[in-house]
């Protein structure tokens, strides 16, 4: 078994990227999308999620540990690559580099974002009912808005293109035609999920602008 370690880690990394981390990303962005329907709708969703039984177990075993493993092993995978876009400027090689770049961006973004939100709730500095206001105040800053925009789009790209490579890594899309079609499908997913995420950011941002005026 020990000689299969790289194989087991790699498959675990791949699986965790989709379930639960990818699934959580989509769920999280969908929840945030309720911000487009106003503060009451958003806070209702937040409180509903926060009322789930065994919440802390869910958070630790379905979100925190999987992201930690995927992120740390992902950094190791990214470190092992020696990008050569200069001599091979093909589409797939570009996606290979982007997958690694967006992985690192996502890691930085997630760390900052969790610190600003979940950790502040845990420290008792912010109440769950105040999360809407917290997001409005964070995104009222132009730089933070840009940072969140990049972070969300990077995470969604990483997830969508990761789905493409997940399908290859498990041997589901095998031939060039299947892999081409899954490229189209995952890029549509990228655009659609990005739209959901960015719409939520814009909702908070517009609320901030309205407050400011």
């Amino acid at each position: 078994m020990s000689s299969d370690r790289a194989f087991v880690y790699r498959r675990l990394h791949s699986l965790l990227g989709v379930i639960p981390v990818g699934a959580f990303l989509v769920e999280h962005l969908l929840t945030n999308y309720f911000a487009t329907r106003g503060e009451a709708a958003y806070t209702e969703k937040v409180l509903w999620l926060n009322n789930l039984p065994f919440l802390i177990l869910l958070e630790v075993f379905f979100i925190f540990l999987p992201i930690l493993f995927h992120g740390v092993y992902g950094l190791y995978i990214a470190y092992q690559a020696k990008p050569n876009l200069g001599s091979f400027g093909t589409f797939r090689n570009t996606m290979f580099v982007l997958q690694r770049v967006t992985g690192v961006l996502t890691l930085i973004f997630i760390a900052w974002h969790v610190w600003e939100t979940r950790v502040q709730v845990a420290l008792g500095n912010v109440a769950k009912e105040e999360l809407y206001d917290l997001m409005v105040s964070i995104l009222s800053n132009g730089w933070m808005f840009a940072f969140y925009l990049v972070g969300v789009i990077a995470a969604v790209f990483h997830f969508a293109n990761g789905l493409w490579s997940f399908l290859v890594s498990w041997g589901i899309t095998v031939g060039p035609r299947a892999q081409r079609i899954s490229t189209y499908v995952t890029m549509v997913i990228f655009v659609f999920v990005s739209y959901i995420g960015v719409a939520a950011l814009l909702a908070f941002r517009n609320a901030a602008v309205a407050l400011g005026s």
Partner: protein
Amino acid sequence: MSEQKTVRLIIKRQDGPDSQPYWEEFDVPYRKNMNVISALMEIQRNPVNAKGQKTRPVVWESNCLEEVCGACSMVINGRPRQACTALIDKLEKPVRIEPMATFPVIRDLIVDRSRMFDALKRVKAWIPIDGTHDLGPGPRIPETERQWMYELSKCMTCGVCLEACPNVNAKSSFMGPFIFSQVQRFNMHPTGAMHKEERLDAIMGEGGLAECGNAQNCVQACPKGIPLTTSIAALNWELTKYSLKKWLRS
């Protein structure tokens, strides 16, 4: 004397395995239809660099001169390829020639591709048929499978796919893209399939399939047009099945 047309070659040289590489430029007399090998032969004939200084002739490896042996692989204008089919007329000038950086350099353009042969041994890229008695004729193979296996068998261990792969480097132990097509080729063969699981175990281990990052440069670079990424994904499926079987039945 009429003016002789020349071609400028910029060559990365290295005197020995442990010496520092350096660049040297040469102007070789142009002939129509010459290739990189014949240009290198001109240097061998008259080892004088572009500054007019006498120098050691550049050394390289070549054998078949028709892109079937794989010995003459080098990086020409940034691309790993065979020198024997790199026609000077079709190359951008000056022509930059380097050894493949993925492999240890022995001298000048000669590299040591042993790691590829070691990998072939690790995955048992052969079909054991020796016995103490006559085993009779082998099983028949469907024509479609024979054709596919034939494509896979065109691999000449040239190393171009390793040089093209961003995950084959000093930081990883990845055996390289070529190995998976050889595993496929021998696992597809009805007699070779008797040792299928040994080959799957080998690519599940250190430096195996897990190291592939799907950049897919290999399939673009392979001079033999081998469907390298199709073999990789097909073996990913084999390993999905095989690892589940190992996990649930042990």
